[in-house]
């Protein structure tokens, strides 16, 4: 969770708002994890995290309760 919080703070400092949520169990590889949801500025947020070497896990597109994987093995 701390990693997600740290990423969220970095995005905040760059003016990007995100929501910290519990990830669906079927999406986490070892059970219980957190996800950051960016409703806007997704590409910019990903770039910021990547530049800071803080991008890990997977990226999904979320539509209501549907999570569609769009990138993986980011760490």
């Amino acid at each position, binding site marked *: *969770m701390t990693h997600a919080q740290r990423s969220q703070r970095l995005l905040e400092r760059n003016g990007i708002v995100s929501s*910290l949520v519990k990830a669906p169990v079927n999406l986490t590889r070892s059970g*219980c994890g957190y996800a950051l949801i960016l409703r806007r500025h997704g590409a910019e947020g990903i770039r910021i995290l990547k530049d800071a070497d803080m991008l890990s896990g997977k990226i999904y597109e979320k539509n209501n309760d549907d999570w569609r994987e769009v990138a993986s093995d980011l760490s």
Partner: protein
Amino acid sequence: MIYLDNAATSFIKPPSVYQAVRNALMCASNPGRGAHQTAMNAAKIVYDCREAAAELFHMDDPSRVVFTSNATHALNIAIHSLVRPDSRVLVSGFEHNAVMRPLYASGCKLQIAGRRLFDSQAVYADFQNKIKAADLVVCTHVSNVFGFELPIDEIAALCRTNAVPLVIDASQSAGLLDIDMRRLGAAFIAMPGHKSLFGPQGTGILLCGQEGRPLLYGGTGTNSASPDMPELLPERLEAGTMNVPGIAGLLAGIRFVRDRGPEIIHAYEQNLLNVLIDRLSEIPRLHLYTDPDRRQGGILSFTVDNTDSESFCEALSRKGIAVRGGLHCAPMAHQSAGTEKEGTVRISLSPFTDVSQLEQARRAVRELTEL
């Protein structure tokens, strides 16, 4: 009661600390265990505290700030991470039992460097002579008995040069002296939250310069399907439910220290201590343990001729003065100073101490020595 036992625990806290503990009890539950509002409130408090500690101790990554229940817990994790039965460990002559007992329990080979009280040069020279035969150095920053400030920057540089990991016990310095993790390059720095960081009892911090080995195993709220502890810090070293009200208080305490400035607090206590030393020096039968340069923060130990320190402290307590006698859980420090037989009376100050309180303490000490 006049409280002068701040080296044990800072009993008087900034008002914001009491308020933060109360607020946390009313609005924060369990961090990392859910996404509902009270869990997220708790998670925010914990992360804010990690960030505040990382900033105060010059660390880039808040996830390397691990919360513990006290400095002893933090030191046990550090020692458990680095020491094996065949390790050769070099310690100063002023270590607390929080360092010595886990080292003894590990079965490692112990060597002591630097036993001359208030002689930083001699301490450094002894470390220099012995470091080649060491796999690890564990060193207190400031003696909890005498306030003696060990030359930690120089010892850290020696460790870096010789590629020997360093564990620092910052129990008496955190919140008062500049502790720069980047500059020191220590493997671990351990500290309590309840002394000069003004958090409640039951809080501590381990700053991790390297990966640690878990001392406790259990739930972390993440990676739950795995039988192993998570690989990532801080969760790797934080099994079980956290002391969120305590951490909330610690956050308020750290902000108090940050806003006032550790160097300002330290200078205030040092000035008070100078006043105290000058006034107690006039009392016959007292022997004060003082640094010639008066670099001993807010801690002063003294002995009274032919008087047991515990009995003297009990008598002071009856007069409303709270100080601590005996060996202060640091028998080796007393052996180094030659005070192991009777112990010492220790007065320790805080930013909430004032001169009028010191004057009342002086009067009480004087009256007791005249009996």
